[in-house]
Each structure stands twice: as C-alpha cells, then as structure tokens.
C-alpha cells in the first residue's frame, strides 16, 4: 500500500470516528487585551502570606436564550475547577454564592457583599450570543479596590470549556507566574470499544489510542488500526502522537498527525525487528525508542522521518523505556543489566552511564520538565507497583501512591506539578492524575481498560 493511500484511508476513518473532525480541533478564541495600555496587577491575600481567596460565580448571560445561559453556567463551573486544580488560590465555596445577589452586568457587582465573605479576588464574566458564536468577557476584580486587575475578552464557538480553560491558564500566568495545564491534553491506550483483533483464535481485544482534556472531558479515539496500538506520546507541539502499533504484525513506531489525519512510519522494513515505546526529543525532531533490530532490546534514536538511526546502548541485558531530559542532552531508561530492571541515565550520545535506582524493580522513567529536575517511575512494592519521584539533585525519593491497586506508567504534566499514571485501585486499569506532592488524586477514565498515559507538553 502506498503512503498516500494509507494516509488517505486514515484521514477518512478519522473523520468517521471523530464527529467534530470537520471543525478545527483546536479553536482557542483569540484573546484580545481589553485595553492596549492595560497594566496587569495581581491580587494578593492578606498580610499573613495566605493564598488569595477567590470567588468564581457563574458568568452572566447577556442573551436570553438557553444556550447562552448554559455556556455561562459551564464557564463558571469549569473555571472554578481549573483554578482549583493548581491550588494557587483559596476558594470561597460555590454553595455560598447563592446568598449574594447575582450581578446582571459589570455595573452592578455587589463588591461589599463579596468583601463580607473575605474575598480578595472576584471573577465576573459575561456571555453574549453573536453571529459567529459567543462573545465572552471576563474581569478579575480586586474586591477591596473594586477595580478590574485583569480584564480579557474572547470571541469563539460554543465550546464553553475551552473559554474557561483559556481564562484559567491566563489568570494563572498573570497572577501567579504559573504555566497552568487547563488546555493541555492526555493520551492513553484503551480497549473500551471491545473490538476483537482479527486473525486470532484466542479472544484478544484490540487497543486504540485516545485523547482527552486534562480533566478527562472530551475523550476521543484517534487511531483506527484495529490492532494493538499502545504507548502513545504527544509530540512537543501537541499536534502529533507517536505510538507503538502492531498493524504490520510486529511492533513498529508510528506517528499520527491527529489534526490532519496523516500517518508516518518511523520504523520501516523487514529488518527492523520489534520497536516499542517512542519518546520525542524536546525539540520534536527525533524519536528515541527500543528496538530488537540487532537481536536484543536496545535504545535507539532516529529522526522523526525514520532516517539517521543511531544505537545508544550496547549490553546483552534489556534496555527499554527511554525518556529525554528537558534540555535534550540526556536520556533516562530502564535496564536490567544489574540483574533487575533499574533506572539509568546516559547522555544523548549513549555515553556517561549512571545508575539511579537500586530497588526491587523500577521501570517507565519519565523526566520532569524544567525547572524541576526529577524522574518519576514505577517501583515494585511486592504484588504491584507504586509511583515514586526521584530528585536528581538531592537523590531524595518521594512516594506518591501507597499500594492501592497497582500503579504504573507515570507521565509528567507540562508544568511538572502533576503526574498522570495508570492505577487498578478502582478495579480495571484506569488513568488518574495526582499532584506531584501526592495530593489531589483525580480519576480520568472509567470505561474499559485505559493505560500508559502521556501528557501534552
């Protein structure tokens, strides 16, 4: 089959599998500063150093129709969840808001009532239906001064959650200097469709690659291999997903450009052995992976188009699960050369090897983004695994899970403050997220088995 035919088939199938494919998949409304001369100030808490206390009531519908009302309500709820996720603000609980008169515009906000609830900041927003969708305005007020410290406005479609995610990221950036993750996405493999692999006499459920918003909403299937498609990894620009696919019989590395519907093969030909676990270099130009092309599982790196393959490890043991350092100068991986699987680090040329763990069994290292310098991994605890985080500067290891089911395949959020992983604590294999201090556990998937998550950069 030619490349053109193959990609054309995938594009058609993607369109069929993805009801929203005819729309641009990403439609972040262009954010327009309300005033070109706007001076951004920040809300602070009281003098004790406590985090600022925010209130986020439902947005105000300026159009009378039900859709506008629904969008306004959803934006308020999702924005509250998004801001709460990073724990940079304290929140006045939503159930208290009912005691305060609802504003009908920016002109009748009852600041004094919010002040009575000790609010430092107040998010007020309006939603208006326009010909092309919605016009949304948001103002973060300093409740004491009654002045808007961070006003924004957006025009876009009916995706209420995307307005909220965008506002959350912008509020975190302007107020806390933090890169929020509200617009980031997860990917994972899933057998939820219950489709059988063809040409096998034993019952074998296929797995396909899915994506979801960071909070688990908008879960969508993005592959149609009808085979085993596993270990997805977001490209640094979050436009492509590299993964391990058995569509050729053996395991090979493929790249799906999910917003275009094209497919690329990184490992091609009859002599390439088995190939698993792609890992993008931070600049997106290279892919590290494990291959048996020379007879034994070793770490290789290739250009994105499959050219320039270079072997980085050379040991009769198993070398697998590569992950790049944020600068792209080092690669961490798993090797059993000491007798059991442990985490090692080498430079990107395969030199300067150093062993980082000496536990029972460690696998799936995932290197944190800067400025953190940490490696998260799965560590055997007896019957299963727990997620641990190694601080490379100090050697200190902190544990995030404690034997609730088995916990594997950690992946850092783009800001390094959260980790996605697979856990069986609720029964089947499901994707969870957890803050990198072990707090704020959140279940992302619930249907079928969902494993090997990755988080967009």
């Amino acid at each position, binding site marked *: 089959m030619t490349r053109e035919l193959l990609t054309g088939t995938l594009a058609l199938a993607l369109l069929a599998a993805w009801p929203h494919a005819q729309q641009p998949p990403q439609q972040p409304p262009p954010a327009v500063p309300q005033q070109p001369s706007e001076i951004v100030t920040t809300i602070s808490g009281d003098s004790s150093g406590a985090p600022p206390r925010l209130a986020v009531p439902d947005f105000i519908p300026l159009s009378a129709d039900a859709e506008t009302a629904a969008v306004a309500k959803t934006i308020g709820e999702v924005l509250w969840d998004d801001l709460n996720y990073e724990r940079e603000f304290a929140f006045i609980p939503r159930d208290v808001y009912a005691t305060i008169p609802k504003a009908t515009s920016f002109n009748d906000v009852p600041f004094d009532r919010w002040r009575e609830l000790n609010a430092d900041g107040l998010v007020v927003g309006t939603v208006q239906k326009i010909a092309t969708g919605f016009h949304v305005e948001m103002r973060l007020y300093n409740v004491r001064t009654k002045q808007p410290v961070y006003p924004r406005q957006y025009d876009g479609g009916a995706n209420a959650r995307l307005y909220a995610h965008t506002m959350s990221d912008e509020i975190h950036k302007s107020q806390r200097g933090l890169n929020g993750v509200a617009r980031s996405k997860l990917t994972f493999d899933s057998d939820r469709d219950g489709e059988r692999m063809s040409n*096998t*006499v*034993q019952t*074998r459920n296929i*797995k396909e690659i899915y994506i979801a918003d960071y909070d688990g909403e908008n879960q969508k299937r993005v592959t149609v291999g009808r085979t*085993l498609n*596993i*270990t997805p990894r977001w490209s640094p620009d979050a436009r492509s997903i590299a993964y*391990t696919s*058995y569509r050729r*019989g*053996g*395991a090979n590395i493929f790249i799906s450009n999910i917003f275009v519907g094209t497919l690329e093969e990184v490992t091609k030909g009859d002599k390439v052995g*088995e190939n*698993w*676990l792609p890992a993008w270099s931070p600049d997106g130009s290279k892919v590290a992976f*494990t291959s*048996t092309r020379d*007879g034994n*599982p070793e770490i290789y790196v290739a250009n994105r188009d499959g050219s320039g393959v270079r072997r980085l490890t050379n040991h009769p043991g*198993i070398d*697998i*699960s590569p992950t790049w350092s944020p600068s792209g100068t080092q690669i961490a991986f*798993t090797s*059993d050369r000491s007798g*059991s*699987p442990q985490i090692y680090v080498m430079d990107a040329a395969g030199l300067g090897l150093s062993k980082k763990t000496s536990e029972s*069994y460690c*696998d*799936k290292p995932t290197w944190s983004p800067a400025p953190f310098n940490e490696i998260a991994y*799965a560590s055997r605890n007896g*019957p*299963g*695994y727990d997620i641990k985080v190694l601080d490379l500067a100090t050697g200190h290891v902190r544990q995030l899970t404690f034997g609730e089911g*088995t916990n*594997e*395949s950690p992946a850092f959020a783009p800001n390094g403050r959260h980790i996605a992983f*697979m856990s069986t604590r609720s029964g089947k294999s499901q994707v969870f997220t957890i803050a990198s201090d072990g707090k704020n556990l959140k279940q992302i998937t619930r249907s079928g088995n969902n*494993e*090997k998550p990755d988080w967009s950069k």
Partner: protein
Amino acid sequence: MTVRQAVIVCAVVCAGAAACGKKTPPVARPMPPPPPASSSNPARPPAPPEPVNEPTIVPPEPVRDDAISSASLDDLNKNSPLKPVFFELDSSDLGAAGQKVLDENAGLLKRYPTWIVTIEGHCDDRGTAEYNLALGERRAIAARAYLVSLGIPADRLRTVSYGKEFPFDPGHDEAAYSKNRRAHFVITAK
C-alpha cells in the same frame, strides 16, 4: 499378534486420531475385528477370521497427516499441535520442561516443513507494561533459538512480543499468572 492385541492397537490408533483435534473430519478407518466369541459358548469357538494381523498394516501416520494437513489454519491453531512453553516469573529461561515441549514442537516442524510459525512472547501482569514488552520478546527469542539449535531454519520462525497485553487467563492469581507467562505458537502458513 493376538486378537486382543489387535483390538488394543486399533483403539490406540483411533484415540490418537481423535486427540488430534475435535474437528477431525471423519476418516475411513478399518473396523476393528469382531470381538472374540462369548465365553458362554466355550465348547467350540468358531475359528477366528483369517486376517487377524490385518490392522497392523494400517500405518497410523497417514491418518494423522490427513487430519492436520486438511485442517484450516484457524482450526489448526485452535487446538494447536505446537504446545506453548511456560516460564517462571521475570525469567526467559526455558528450563527442562520447556525444552521437552520444544523438542516435540521441533519434531512436528520437521514433519511439516512448509509451516511458518510465529512465536508470541507473553507475560503476566506482575511486570510493568513497558518492561514486559522486552521480556516477552526475550521469551519468544529463547524459544526460537532452541528450535534453531535443533535444526529448524530460523526463517520459518518469526517472533513477536505482546508483553502483558493479551493474557491467556485474565485472573490475578498464580494459577492465572503461570498460564500467562508463555511462548505461544501460531502457525501462520502451511
């Protein structure tokens, strides 16, 4: 050979053929000779029919050959004559039991020299999903290397690892785990 022995031989042949597969199509086989006359008539048993030794000239192999040769790949793989090899936890060592199974599989592969076989490496879910991909490959490669050492051409033996993605038994106890740590043989061409 006595009549009694002939009956036993015949029974063994039939049982052997039946064991080759539940889906074995009916194959013409010689009827066993009539049973010996009842002892209730001991005085003058009728002379046994002449061809007492006839069943022994029916070779069992053609029957088995026909059953296997005529089966579709799916039917063949459903109750495969190539038996799986099982492994210990975290190990790709064949062990004596594994070698014995492979000795028998090698015999079949020599008897059916056109077969192309994929050896699938599988793991239980006590290893991680990622490392198990390599461990399963190790198991498949170990089985292939042993078969090659017995004279099976390497190009008839492909390997693939499914890690812990396709457990044979979805359970979470040692009984299930021990079935899942395996090298499974699939005949892909014959």
